[in-house]
């Protein structure tokens, strides 16, 4: 988090710098099945974030010794393109931050993918952040869910993710980069909408018990919108396929 000394006024008359209400999501767009080679894929734009997620598998586990004879294993890579930020040229390949995000993202999907259906095999999830503007791990998970579904991999639920932060006494939904840099708290969450189970939870900053409770309620409320956009993206693919066959 950047120094608070030179923090810009993030909330003016109940509105945020980009004009959003405190509990308002940035515009979210998802397109499913965008890559030809991948078994499933999704392209997501969330505010200025641009994310490509792809899934390969279930396939033979490499290296073989990692195979689990009772269930499938999941591998996950989250990485940021070196040209993705408005800052300096980044280093290529996953750094420590990306490695941690890859791990917690993998754990999210280990919870929902029907791993017992594919013993001995491996499912690869690749998340590439092409442009970043805060909340990229939430964007990556939301995109990867759609990619897994478009690969036809059975899941218990279509997971979504979103972040809730705090500026002064206000809770704000879906922080952009500027808000993320200067906020007092940030809490990304991934939730299974069917039963509201929490599958990813990270946080740093300062929340009272009451604020924590309210923040989680805000995430669930936003989840209704995010889930609908995820499902619409998948429906759109099948509609396109249906139209193609009807016209032939």
């Amino acid at each position, binding site marked *: 988090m950047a120094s608070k000394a030179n923090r810009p006024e993030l909330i003016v008359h109940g509105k945020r710098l980009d004009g959003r209400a405190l509990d308002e999501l940035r515009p979210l767009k998802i397109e499913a099945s965008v*890559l030809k080679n991948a078994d499933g894929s999704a392209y997501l734009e969330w505010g200025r974030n641009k994310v490509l997620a792809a899934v390969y598998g279930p396939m033979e586990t490499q290296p073989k010794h990692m195979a689990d004879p009772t269930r499938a294993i999941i591998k996950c890579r989250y990485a940021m393109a070196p040209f*993705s930020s408005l800052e300096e040229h980044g280093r290529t390949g996953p750094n420590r931050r990306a490695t941690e995000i890859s791990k917690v993202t993998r754990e999210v999907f280990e919870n929902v993918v029907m791993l017992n259906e594919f013993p001995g095999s491996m499912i690869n999830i690749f998340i590439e952040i*092409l442009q970043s503007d805060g909340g990229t791990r939430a964007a990556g998970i939301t995109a990867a869910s759609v990619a897994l579904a478009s690969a036809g991999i059975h899941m218990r639920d279509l997971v979504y993710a979103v972040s809730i932060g705090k500026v002064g006494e206000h809770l704000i939904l879906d922080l952009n980069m500027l808000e993320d840099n200067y906020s007092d708290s940030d809490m990304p969450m991934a939730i299974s909408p069917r039963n509201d189970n929490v599958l990813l939870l990270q946080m740093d900053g300062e929340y009272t018990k009451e604020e924590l409770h309210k923040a989680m309620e805000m995430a669930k409320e936003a989840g209704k919108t995010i889930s609908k956009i995820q499902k619409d993206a998948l429906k759109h693919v099948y509609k396109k396929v249906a139209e193609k066959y009807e016209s032939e």
Partner: protein
Amino acid sequence: MEAIDMVKSSYIRELFAKGLREDMRKSSEFRKIKITPNVIENAEGSAQVDLGATRVLAGVKLDLGEPMEDTPEEGTLAMSAELLPLASAEYETGPPSPESIELARVVDRGIRAGKCVNMPSLFIEKDKVWNVYVDVYVLNFDGNLFDASELAAMAALVNTKVPEYEDGKVLREKRVKELKIDNIVTSATFAKIDGGILLDPDGNEESAATTRLTVATDGKFVRAMQKGLGGNFTTNEVDEMAEMAMQKHDELKKHIESR
């Protein structure tokens, strides 16, 4: 070679024997090319290239840095390429593969030898220049990464804006000045299959190829070449491919310059 590659390879060779290509292209024809500039607003320049089903994204960043010792009054240029694991089941995570390093170096040579970027214009003050980073991201693989990447890198550079530099600070929000481009280089890549030569091989054709040649040119000079794979070419064949690459230059250049 894996079984699936052998099947693809023999299929391509059977077609080739009848004078055909999978998608009914002529031997000297590129697949459909689509260039979308400025797809990554955070980058100083960017372009996505679709060459048939091959898709690559190039991003350009400009950072403050030091000049090279032998060119104290010029900026620097660094090129890298990543074969992202989401682009093909064959690509793996981990350190850069020899293929990705070759790809970056071949694209780099064409652009550098063609003196495309005006390096003195990147000089700021003593010991302070712009370092230009071009990153080529392969998003979907279907053959001929060389030409797709050369197009993407060139189109991204043509659309690059230089940040303002004031009082020792880089103001990336203020990007008005265009990067000075002096020349445009394009490349044409050929695959040799059973003695015949095909322009712009797709993924299946590459798996049937015994030899490959990339020719980068600005239309006037041949600027860079790279032969790949275990086979060979006659000098006559090299003449023909250089000639063809130069013929194709104007058509490719139009794609780069259209915004």
